[in-house]
């Protein structure tokens, strides 16, 4: 340490600089340690004059604590508000609200099950389509894309994330749904009809359309995060696998995907989060019928959609209260799904060998 400062001093430390900027503040303070120094180095006296900085450090700490507390406050506020506003419905239906499948404003019969089912199923369909697609896209972009094509393609994917969801909805209504109705659904019905997932009347709009549009919407999140974690894997890992005689796919599987798997699961969780809460585009194509049907061709309803559609026309207090409770259900489902996903990550990494040192 001492030799360092010594070196700075002896090595002609820009005299013009020391006269003006650095020496300025230190000489103005009387009684600073630099004053006793027979030959005051400008850097030393400047640093001595700074003091302990304890006050500003404490302020910084409390500022950051306040930021963290804000999050807790917001979550708590949302939860209490949702519970309070749905009190009437909670009292009338109890826990049965979450497992009952009626929805009739005329008779005052409300249950959240079809909406929970619709939200979960459409998100699941979206993941089933988007995860393989976006991991494949990420693999192509990081491992085999020719240089000049890489950034335009990455830019295009990220552009997908910037499109407003109502525009997705319009596009789905005018482009996606007709394509599904005319070309995709008949083929699915003919080949995979035996699974009973692709049967019944083919309207075009319905659970499948909602799942597909959600898949397109979450694709940029999953693929760009996956790309990031994949490109963070050191090249030495790829070389290690290649030197063992691996093909390109084996190299990607063992050297890249395996090392990036936790990050990939994380990106899938983020995508799922967006799919669960997505409202506008889903509302426009899911069909908005509160029924639980196994077939993906059938129309359904999601929690976010029913709130958006019916909030303004909720005529009595119970109706409104039931809608808010749907919001509470969405809140809970999101938390539960996230917790389960985290549990999955934990289970995956727990089996992995411990890393004692870095």
């Amino acid at each position, binding site marked *: 340490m001492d030799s360092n400062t010594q070196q700075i001093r002896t090595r002609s430390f820009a005299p013009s600089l020391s006269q003006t900027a650095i020496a300025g503040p230190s000489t103005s303070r009387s009684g600073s340690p630099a004053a006793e120094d027979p030959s005051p180095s400008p850097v030393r006296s400047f640093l001595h004059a700074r003091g302990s900085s304890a006050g500003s450090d404490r302020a910084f700490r409390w500022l950051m604590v306040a930021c963290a507390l804000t999050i807790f406050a917001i979550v708590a506020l949302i939860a209490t508000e949702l519970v309070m506003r749905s009190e009437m419905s909670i009292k009338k239906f109890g826990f049965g609200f979450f497992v009952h499948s009626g929805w009739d404003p005329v008779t005052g019969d409300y249950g959240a099950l079809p909406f929970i089912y619709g939200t979960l199923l459409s998100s699941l369909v979206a993941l089933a389509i988007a995860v393989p697609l976006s991991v494949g896209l990420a693999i192509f972009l990081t491992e085999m894309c020719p240089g000049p094509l890489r950034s335009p393609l990455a830019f295009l994917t990220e552009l997908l994330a910037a499109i407003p969801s109502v525009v997705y909805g319009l596009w789905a209504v005018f482009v996606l749904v007709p394509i599904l109705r005319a070309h995709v659904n008949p083929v699915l019905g003919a080949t995979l009809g035996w699974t009973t997932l692709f049967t019944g009347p083919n309207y075009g709009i319905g659970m499948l359309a909602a799942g597909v549009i959600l898949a397109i919407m979450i694709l940029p999140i999953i693929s760009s995060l996956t790309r990031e974690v994949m490109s963070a894997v050191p090249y030495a890992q790829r070389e290690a696998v290649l030197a063992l005689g691996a093909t390109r796919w084996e190299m990607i599987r063992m050297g890249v995907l395996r090392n990036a798997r936790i990050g990939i699961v994380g990106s899938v969780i983020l995508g799922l989060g967006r799919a669960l809460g997505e409202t506008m585009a889903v509302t426009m194509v899911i069909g908005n019928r509160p029924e639980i049907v196994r077939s993906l061709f059938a129309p359904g309803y999601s929690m976010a959609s029913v709130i958006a559609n019916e909030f303004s026309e909720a005529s009595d207090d119970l109706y409104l209260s039931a809608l808010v409770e749907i919001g509470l259900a969405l809140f809970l489902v999101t938390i539960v799904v996230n917790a389960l996903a985290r549990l999955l990550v934990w289970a995956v990494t727990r089996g992995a*060998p411990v890393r004692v040192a870095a």
Partner: protein
Amino acid sequence: MGVGITVKDLDAWYGTHQTLFKISLDIPANQATALIGPSGCGKSTFVRCLNRMHETNASGRVDGTVRIGAMDIYKDAAPVEIRRRVGMVFQRPNPFPTMSIYENVASGLKLNGFRNRRVLDEIVERSLKHAALWEEVKDDLRRKSGASLSGGQQQRLCIARALAVDPEVLLMDEPASALDPVSTAKIEDLIFELKSQYTIVIVTHNMQQAARVAERTGFFLSGKLVEFDVTHKIFTNPGDKRTEDYITGRFG
């Protein structure tokens, strides 16, 4: 048992930049051959041409003939086939961090679809013993990650991983340059042990290391092979003035 390597008129490029010029040499089987030379002289590129790793770089290009045993590796076989027969150890230890010690050693075999559990256990034990690591890790084989070992242990783990597929040739690109003297000595002892069974090509910055472990030594300078001879002769009576200057420390 190892096989010999015959290189004839080998040129290599990165893009338009030529890094190797008409390299020709014979590397004998079951011996250690050291390649020395200043940084950037092409010795690493040269070993990377021996298992076709050079061309994994998008701009890498090679011309000339390399025979490993009877096989012309740039004509008779695909890169993956060659790399299964020619093992490689890199400058920085690169074990797989998400795998246990056992899985690290078994990775080459598993990759190629080898599933026999009992034989796999034997091979892992034998490879770790060969790499002089067995005693240190035998209790943590499945519990500890390859990345939890010390730097020197990691490098020996990488050697064990390369040995597990029973290669005919073992290439080592400055295997000890990131290690402390104790670990370096262990790696050198290891090379001494291994060369009776494998053909070893070792790139090194450390001339004492070349003198200690290798029967033959080649001196590279600016992409050319200046001199290739018996190690003793290179270090005591070099035929070329540039070799003499380098080994006596007058440049480089």
